């Protein structure tokens, strides 16, 4: 039944992009208007602040690679994790915890492998990170299959548990040898992911993120497994009735793969950026990932784009603090307004068209 409430937006959307230029212009103007007003009201020179934002994100090769793209890597991997799960109809809010599990496992492996060649140790460590991310997600999958516990809630709970687990590990088994600091021992050079360009901090994690996003995009589109996952996400009942798809098996696998990707994000962040396990290793990448994935409409390739957008926002936010003296609170407000305007830009035309229908 097609009431105005649940009208499918797909056919409508096409009619909408009629004058994208005008709409983009109007929206940009609105964005800038709100931001400028806000900055002026708080006594900041909007020109200086917004220039800092742009410079911090894209202003130089270093900023783009080492600030924006370095942040985009974990956002893309966790965003991909969320996108795959959502595509299978699973609300995995637990990428944060799975990331932490992956990072912790990687730190443990590399801590134990000090005498093993990096060529072996590093891939093994990343793999174990993925496996532990998958296992952490697997708990939610198990709770869902066996006990019918909604994954929305179990994954939130598991995020907190993971956080405290890491807190304990860095003060217990994984603590650095002097046993003073709550962190693991810093990785030897050989155990650090190589950087892509000298003079930047951009590491090969980017290649992994781009490669896996592309792979996931291709896999969802072109393989039977990917198609099966999509059928379960679109209509599990039809997938079972017509496709004879083993829905719960597909769900469990999707959950595990999602967890593995988030775990890899943690492993890559540890080996590519922080080089040690800290309690605060993730500034909430796993939560931001949900917005990254949804804004990309759960398209794995789109995730790369939105991850860069969010990475740029955060990189620019740091620069606004550093170079324009904008307090972090205001930086958050600015980031939120930009996100809201992106959402509005996405929905406004569609809404107008739906209303006229």
């Amino acid at each position, binding site marked *: 039944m097609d009431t105005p409430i649940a009208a499918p937006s797909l056919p409508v959307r096409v009619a909408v992009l009629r004058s994208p230029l005008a709409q983009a212009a109007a929206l940009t103007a609105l964005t800038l208007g709100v931001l400028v007003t806000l900055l002026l009201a708080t006594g900041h020179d909007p020109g200086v602040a917004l220039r800092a934002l742009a410079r911090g994100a894209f202003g130089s090769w270093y900023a783009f690679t080492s600030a924006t793209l370095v942040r985009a890597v974990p956002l893309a991997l966790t965003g991909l994790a969320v996108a795959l799960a959502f595509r299978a109809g699973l609300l995995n809010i637990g990428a944060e915890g799975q990331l932490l599990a992956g990072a912790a496992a990687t730190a443990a492996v590399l801590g134990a492998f000090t005498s093993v060649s990096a060529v072996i140790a590093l891939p093994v460590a990343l793999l174990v990170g993925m496996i532990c991310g998958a296992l952490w997600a697997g708990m939610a999958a198990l709770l869902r299959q066996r006990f019918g516990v909604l994954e929305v809630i179990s994954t939130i709970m598991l995020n907190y548990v993971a956080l405290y687990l890491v807190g304990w590990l860095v003060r217990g088994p994984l603590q650095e040898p002097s046993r003073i600091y709550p962190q693991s021992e810093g990785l030897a050079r050989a155990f650090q992911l190589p950087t892509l360009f000298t003079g930047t901090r951009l590491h090969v994690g980017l290649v992994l993120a781009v490669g896996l996003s592309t792979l996931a995009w291709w896999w969802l589109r072109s393989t039977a497994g990917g198609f099966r996952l999509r059928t379960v996400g679109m209509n599990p009942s039809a997938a079972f009735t017509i496709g004879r798809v083993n829905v719960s098996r597909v769900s469990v696998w999707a959950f595990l793969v999602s967890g593995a990707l988030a775990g890899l994000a943690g492993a890559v962040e540890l080996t590519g950026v922080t080089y040690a396990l800290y309690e605060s290793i*993730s*500034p909430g990448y796993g939560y931001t990932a949900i917005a990254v994935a949804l804004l990309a409409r759960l398209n794995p390739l789109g995730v790369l784009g939105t991850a860069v957008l969010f990475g740029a926002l955060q990189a620019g936010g740091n620069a606004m603090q550093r170079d324009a003296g904008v307090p*972090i609170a205001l930086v958050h407000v600015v980031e939120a307004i930009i996100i809201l305007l992106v959402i509005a830009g996405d929905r406004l035309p569609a809404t107008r068209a739906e209303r006229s229908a």
Partner: protein
Amino acid sequence: GGEQTAATSDALRVALLTPGPISDQAWNGGAYEGLMAIRDSLGANVSHIQTKTPAEFEENFRQYGAQGYRMVVGHGFEFQDAAARVAPDYPGTIFICTSGDMLGPNLSGMNFAFEEASFQAGMIAARLSTSGVIGAIAGTELPPVRASFTAFERGAKLIRPDIRLLVAYLGTWDDVAAGKEQALALIARGADVVFQNADAAGLGIFAAAKEKNVLTFGANADQNEIAPDHIVGSIVINWPRVMLTVAREVQDSAYRGTLYQFGMRRNMVSLVLNPRFESRIPADLRAQVDSVGTAIVEGRFHDMDDILQPADRPARQNAP
């Protein structure tokens, strides 16, 4: 956020990175106060950034280094790995990490002998406690926190060997309600003096002390006025002095790459008693506390030598 002052182009430029909000009236707010002192006293151009995740530390250090900041302070042990990686690339910038033990040509750890004043606080707490149970609450367990709590317990035991210390951690530095509830739980177990190092969440501990009429201590800054009838005294780091001392060295090119160890000795850390409690602290105790203080300043006090504080160990050299 840091304010930029109009300064001459060759003015000293100093940056501060804090892991938490500078409105906490404690660890982060104190350092920011120090930064402001540098700006006001030395006419420096200053910048501040709040950044919590290790992933961002290196980027911010590099950006400051590249922009020619002369002194960059990372406010916490967690900053030092990143600082050590960046320092060699920016020899013109001095990197300082609080609670750190790394050392290099342009990299120093800076420690506060928080435990010295904590020891004294413990002595007072033991005497003011009627129940024989005292408590200590922190956000999370960090090296200076642990050292401070150990010293607090030793000080208390010195006065009253049978005293019992209950320690609890909140897992957060800004959940005031959790701070209060944890304090109430300790109070319910008989603790009538609650020591704390919980930054913003510490306000909840003060609120509990007020409500249950027990005693507590301020930490990192002079917090005595927040609950004047219940805060016995505060362990105060004299942030303006600390930060100015280092900044002056940097400005005068007198920086020599040493580990900074600030304690009672140079009056950088002190137990500032709440005047309202002066009368409630018996003279003999007062004398005893003072004599411990003197012994510490004169280097004659060895009861805390085994409490691992980074500066007490040979400094780790920054690997090139």
